[in-house]
């Protein structure tokens, strides 16, 4: 159809509003309450236009054929002025000191329509008070125009329902129940800041950036979040070489298309400009770190490495690469260890999180990564979340799951703890930690017994079904119930529900992988997905949620002891030949050691260790053992942005640049390679990780130098088939998802369409094996470790971000109410948790998140390191430690 705007004809589609058409054609109509990603409120009337001689709100009025629209007639202008006049009558004339000055729609409109003051008189006295009782957001209801955008983004995108309109008439404001505030006891606010981004005025503003700059003073750089594997796109607002705040990026096709972030992405930037940043190289002499020049530090390291190599051979040296660093840096690091040092012992913290995913999914499907894309979850009809706590650990995905539920999806949650999603689940399962294989076999038992599996898929696309059938035959619901302590009826309900899915997707994380049976757990989930035909289509799949911003990329780029970049096995002669040719040197075809194995061999077979951006003293199991291992080395080099708990034990410390200070790429959990862009200069003498390593390589007589990260990516593309089409010039916008084999290839949204990477999908038979440690009379509690919303990994970044650490400053252990009562422990009291490997004091958090007999500790806290307690026993295939299950004692600390 055609409509007429300002006497010109425009094409219109059914369902489009007048505003849509005007915007699509570059015709300016001012709006206040409208946002394209939110539902339409029609609240402000600022978007009035004249339509067939009447004034109508253009954002709510659908286009009709032949409509005559005027967007800037005298009447329209008059109407808008009246509305603005009314708004200004209840709005303080505060622009001078308002945070939003320069970024406020009311101010812009007042300027545009030349309204200096309201004709109804000005608001000289505040009617409300400013609320700023939390470290993140400030709320000034006097500046609120009741457009409702904050409420809608909170309800429709973030799905936290923390705020709503409260009170009526003239007293109406956006508020929280009983005026308790966003940090009140009953508040569900998670400080994502999306409401602030949506607010067109200064009613909602960020506290940490208050008074630190106006919108027009900032340089704005789009980059990728340095925290979790969701890979949210962020806009850094920079002034005077400082990151002042983080704004949203609205970009269709991004992992966070509506500018979503969690509290870490939004407020976790303080560490970048923190005074603790390392600024010069350090060498330890007589137990003291001394500042030295780059030349001295690197000469020293080079000479030491050469010496160890000469005396003990290349195999006496190992390297930890980093899931925090860029793809380019990981590539350079593994190249250094392989080509310059001459060993394959390079690994990184994926060993501690998703090694079992890489191993398990590669066995089942031929490719060890998330099969589908983040956004697809919104269209799934049954979602199975197991061993994953998305609303805290991958919050932007957590919100997408909630959105799927709003659209009618069903949810199964299997987690030993009562996580937020448990409360929203159609079937909630609380399995005993470490019994996942039994649980999933039980689900498959029911599905096969009741004939609910996808016969066509099984026949056409898989092998070994008979083996699976015979194994799971032994897992009837009663038996599984006895192992998992899940009522048999819930097992049956969950099985039937998942089998009923048209688009069923499985989401999992460390609850599955961090076990002695981690690979088995992953294989079980792969079995379940194949059995129900939930692979190779949109909104289905087996979807491991990767923890670190670039843990996917670090794996992809070969920071693993058994594969070159792109998962090309080091022990295949053709691969070795290919890389020997490319790197111009001899390479080893012996598979190297993994993280925990390297630490076990320290002082014995391993004499020198080079750690780039990892903190094993807090992240690896059995802290006392880790420290002893580091102390026994002849040479420990730590390259990092802070003097971490690990760096304390180093002989040489090399200062590196943070994510905000460099160019490169991160690969998120959905295999999307996204740009990291330099926003500020690195402090002091700190340098890019890749530069440091190249410089060191030169000193060890290996020619390795690049002009830029982009140039490194060119080399990667040449040698890595799955990254074959990745070039920086193609990564503007939303990046590319691997496999992407050539310049022409558009990337891959979901894997295994039509066939699996290695042809047919393989069912694997896995049987339940109990965890290595189980509670006994002395160590009678079962301890799980993990993460929480506000902090990240070993806390080096989040705990140096002041707003976050102010809000969540202390370590804790979650204890069930009944256990706490029995032991006389009150919420907030000090308790001691002891395992066979060590003891830790921390604060008790008493409640019902954990079951009786179980405890949960986040591992972010150096002062109460959960990993002093954990068990280093390994999964035999993936060599991942069993971080999720240790037997511990719990006592009250008597002060």
């Amino acid at each position, binding site marked *: 159809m055609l409509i007429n705007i300002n006497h010109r004809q425009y094409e219109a589609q059914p369902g489009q509003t007048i505003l849509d058409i005007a915007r699509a054609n570059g015709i300016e109509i001012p709006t206040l309450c409208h946002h394209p990603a939110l539902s339409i409120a029609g609240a402000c009337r600022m978007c009035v236009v004249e339509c067939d001689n009447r004034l109508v709100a253009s954002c709510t009025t659908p286009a009709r054929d032949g409509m005559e629209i005027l967007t800037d007639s005298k009447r329209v202008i008059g109407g808008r002025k009246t509305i603005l006049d009314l708004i200004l009558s209840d709005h303080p004339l505060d622009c001078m000191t308002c945070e939003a000055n320069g970024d406020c729609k009311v101010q812009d409109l007042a300027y545009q329509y030349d309204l200096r003051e309201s004709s109804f008189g000005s608001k000289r006295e505040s009617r409300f008070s400013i609320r700023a009782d939390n470290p993140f957001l400030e709320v000034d209801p006097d500046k609120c125009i009741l457009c409702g955008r904050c409420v809608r983004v909170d309800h429709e995108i973030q799905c936290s329902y923390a705020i709503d309109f409260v009170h009526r008439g003239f007293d109406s404001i956006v*508020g929280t129940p009983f005026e308790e505030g966003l940090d009140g006891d*009953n508040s569900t606010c998670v400080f994502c800041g999306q409401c602030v981004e949506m607010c067109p005025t200064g009613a909602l503003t960020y506290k940490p950036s208050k008074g630190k700059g106006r919108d027009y003073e900032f340089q704005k750089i789009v980059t990728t979040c340095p925290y979790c594997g969701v890979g949210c796109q962020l806009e850094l607002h920079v002034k005077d070489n400082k990151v002042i705040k983080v704004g949203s990026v609205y970009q269709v096709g991004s992992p966070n298309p509506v500018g979503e972030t969690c509290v870490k992405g939004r407020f976790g930037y303080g560490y970048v400009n923190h005074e603790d940043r390392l600024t010069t190289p350090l060498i330890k002499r007589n137990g003291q770190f001394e500042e030295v020049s780059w030349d001295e530090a690197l000469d020293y390291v080079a000479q030491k490495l050469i010496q160890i190599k000469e005396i003990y051979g290349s195999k006496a040296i190992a390297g930890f690469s980093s899931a925090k660093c860029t793809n380019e840096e990981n590539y350079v690091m593994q190249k250094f260890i392989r080509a310059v040092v001459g060993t394959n012992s390079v690994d990184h913290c994926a060993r501690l999180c998703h090694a079992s995913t890489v191993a398990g999914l590669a066995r089942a499907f031929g490719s060890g990564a998330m099969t589908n894309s983040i956004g697809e979850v919104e269209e799934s009809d049954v979602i199975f979340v197991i061993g994953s706590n998305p609303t805290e650990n991958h919050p932007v995905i957590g919100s997408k799951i909630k959105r799927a539920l709003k659209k009618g999806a069903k949810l199964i949650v299997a987690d030993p703890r009562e996580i937020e999603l448990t409360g929203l689940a159609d079937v909630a399962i609380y399995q005993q930690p470490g019994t996942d294989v039994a649980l999933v076999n039980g689900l498959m038992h029911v599905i096969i017994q009741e004939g609910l599996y996808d016969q066509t898929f099984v026949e056409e696309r898989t092998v070994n079904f008979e083996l699976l059938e015979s194994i799971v035959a032994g897992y009837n619901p009663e038996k599984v119930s006895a192992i998992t302590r899940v009522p048999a009826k819930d097992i049956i309900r969950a099985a039937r529900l998942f089998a009923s899915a048209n688009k069923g997707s499985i989401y999992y994380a460390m609850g599955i992988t961090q076990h002695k049976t981690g690979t088995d757990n992953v294989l079980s989930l792969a079995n379940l997905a194949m059995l129900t035909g939930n692979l190779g289509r949109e909104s289905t799949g087996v979807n491991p949620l990767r923890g670190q911003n670039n843990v996917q990329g670090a794996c992809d780029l070969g920071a693993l002891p058994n594969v070159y970049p792109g998962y090309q096995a080091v022990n295949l002669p053709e691969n070795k030949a290919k890389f020997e040719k490319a790197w111009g040197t001899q390479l080893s075809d012996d598979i190297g050691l993994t993280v925990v194995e390297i630490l076990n061999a320290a002082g014995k077979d391993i004499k020198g260790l080079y750690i780039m951006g990892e903190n094993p003293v807090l992240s690896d199991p059995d802290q006392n053992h880790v420290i002893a291992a580091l102390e026994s080395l002849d040479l420990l080099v730590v390259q990092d942005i802070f003097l971490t708990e690990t760096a304390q034990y180093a002989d040489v410390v090399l200062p590196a640049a943070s994510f905000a200070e460099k160019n490169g790429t991160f690969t998120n959990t959905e295999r999307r390679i996204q740009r990291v862009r330099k926003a500020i200069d690195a402090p002091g003498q700190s340098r890019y990780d890749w530069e440091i390593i190249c410089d060191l390589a030169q000193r060890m007589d290996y020619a390795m130098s690049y002009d830029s990260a982009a140039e490194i990516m060119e080399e990667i593309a040449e040698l890595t088939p799955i990254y074959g089409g990745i070039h920086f010039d193609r990564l503007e916008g939303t990046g590319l998802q691997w496999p992407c084999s050539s310049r022409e290839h558009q990337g891959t949204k979901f894997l295994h369409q039509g066939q699996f990477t290695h042809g047919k999908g393989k069912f694997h038979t896995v049987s339940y094996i109990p965890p290595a440690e189980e509670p006994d009379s002395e160590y009678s509690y079962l301890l799980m470790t993990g993460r929480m919303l506000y902090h990240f990994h070993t806390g080096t970044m989040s705990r140096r971000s002041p707003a976050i650490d102010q809000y969540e400053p202390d370590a804790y252990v979650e204890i069930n109410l009944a256990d706490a009562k029995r032991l006389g422990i009150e919420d907030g009291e000090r308790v001691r948790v002891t395992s066979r490997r060590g003891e830790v004091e921390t604060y008790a958090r008493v409640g019902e998140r954990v079951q009786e007999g179980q405890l949960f500790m986040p591992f972010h806290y150096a002062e109460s390191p959960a990993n002093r307690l954990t068990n280093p026993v390994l999964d035999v295939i993936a060599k991942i430690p069993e971080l999720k299950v240790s037997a511990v004692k719990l006592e009250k600390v008597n002060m």
Partner: protein
Amino acid sequence: MENCNFQELDSIIEKYRDKSGNLIPVLHEVQNKVGYLPMDVQKYVAAKLKVPFSKVYGVVTFYSFFSTTPKGKHTIGVCLGTACYVKGVEGIVEKIKEELEIETGGTSNDGRFTMTITRCLGACSMAPVMMIDEKVYGQLTPEKIPDILDKY
């Protein structure tokens, strides 16, 4: 919550379960039962109906017939419409406040009265006017107030 046990609310909530637009009728009946809608009750209703607490609170504070504080046995509504205003209703308000030692919207210590302000009651010819429960009192003077209140 001293004067209510939550099981009693369950039957009300059960009656409206799975009916759309059930929040307002549920709150209404719950208020009739409990007398008002304190935080615990609102939280309970929210959890039971699977409605966000913020929404329940928004609704409760939007409609004037809901109250989050205990209501007195009798509700006094003093008209603050134009006619009553002109005829000096403010003096009446002051007198009631003084007699009952309360503020507007408050409830007297003995729980007998809650005083509210209303718009025009449509009885302007009798201004100044107030209502106690369903009964209208007109041509008020401050002196008449103690006697009227004593009747309750």
